[in-house]
Each structure stands twice: as structure tokens, then as C-alpha cells.
């Protein structure tokens, strides 16, 4: 299996928010997350962005 770089990982994380990832893609992400704190954070932050933007415009 090809190992993902951080750049490829973030691109795939983003696509995972827009389309169903293939099984192999999900496995590759897990493998990368296991060794990369930065990408785990970036992934959680992109999910947070989604929650935040849904709530726009927020409180008056």
C-alpha cells in the first residue's frame, strides 16, 4: 500500500467530506493518522469548520 504524504492526506480528508471514500482510501488515512498528529488535528479542524459554518451567522 502506498503511504500518503500530509498533503495527500489533507486532500483526501477534505474529499471525505464531499464524497464517499473508497475502502483503500480510508485504510490509507488511518495508517497515516496513526503516525501523524498534525493531520489528525487538521482533520478534526476541517470537521469543526463544517459545524461552525452550518451555525452561521451565530448569535446576534
Amino acid at each position, binding site marked *: 500500500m502506498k503511504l500518503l504524504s500530509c*498533503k495527500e492526506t489533507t486532500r483526501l480528508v477534505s474529499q471525505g467530506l464531499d464524497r464517499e471514500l473508497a475502502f483503500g482510501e480510508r485504510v490509507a488515512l488511518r495508517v497515516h493518522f496513526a503516525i501523524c498528529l498534525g493531520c489528525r488535528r487538521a482533520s478534526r479542524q476541517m470537521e469543526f469548520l463544517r459545524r461552525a459554518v452550518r*451555525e*452561521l451567522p451565530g448569535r446576534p
Partner: protein
Amino acid sequence: MATSDEFRKQLETLRPYLLRYASLQLRDAAAAEDAVQEALVAALAGEASFAGRANLRTWLTGILKHKIVDAIRRQAREPVVSAEADEEVGDIDELFTERGHWNERPAAWGNPDGALEQSQFFRALELCLARLPGRTAQAFMMREHLGLETGEICKELDITPTHCWVMLYRARMALRECLQQTWFGK
């Protein structure tokens, strides 16, 4: 049924907020004005259906959301300025080394959902959204705020799915950088 002056006044006080909300998604002052106007007219006609609901702002935002989707669909039928089609956000390449590793590892955001309780956070988010190029912001808002599927976004913006994913990726990366600088990193 006559519309009460009180109701009309309440709607007017929300106009600046509605304009800001529409401008974020339409990136065109005239189109935003039109959408807000349409929403206000619809709201006035529908006062009865508001009766009893707790939050006027939420109800009105719901009406405006539909008007914005309509406006986006109208815009999509107009010719696209070709220079805009290939717009780039900041540059993703700058975030990574040549081998694709982070130049600077993303910092922890702690418990970011706490920010959702603060109105200043949403101002910071709006400012970050305003920094994105127009079509990128539009695609992002269609996806993440209006909740449209990528297929529909591609169709409305007349781009391929791959281009659409790239735009959304760039938007997300630029926004997390921007929020890191203007909010979470402070």
C-alpha cells in the same frame, strides 16, 4: 390581513444582518440586496406563519436561504468570467515541504466548539470567509452552509467534480489557516 407596523419594524432592524449574510454567499452587492428584498417581501406576506415562533431572525434566515439558492441558480445561467474560473486561494503548496510534509504542524485547537457560543467568533469566521476568492467562497458556502451535494454545486458553477473538490479543499485549508491566525492562535 394588514401587516402590523411593529412586525415591519422588527424586520427592518434585521436588514443589515441579512445583507451581510447574503453578501457572504452571493459575492455581489446587487444580488444580495435583491435576495434580501425578496425575503423581506415574503416575510411580510407570511407574517401569519411566523406567529408563535420563538426567533424571528432564525425564521427570516430560513426564508433568505431559499432566496439565495434561487439567486445562485440564476447566476449559474449567466456567463462566467473566465479569469475567475482558475482563481487560487493563497497557496496550498506553501503549507507543505516538497515531499508533502507540513512546513508547520497544525496547532491544537483545544475544544473549538466552545467558540460556537461566542458571537465574536462568528465575526472572525465571516472575515476569513470574506478573504476567500469569490467562487471558492461560494462553492464552500453552498457545500457547508447550504448543505448542497457536490454534484449540484458542480452543475451550478459549471465546473468538473475534480475542480469542485479542489476548490473545497483550498477553501478549507485557507480557512483553518486564517482561523488559526485570527482566533485560535491568539
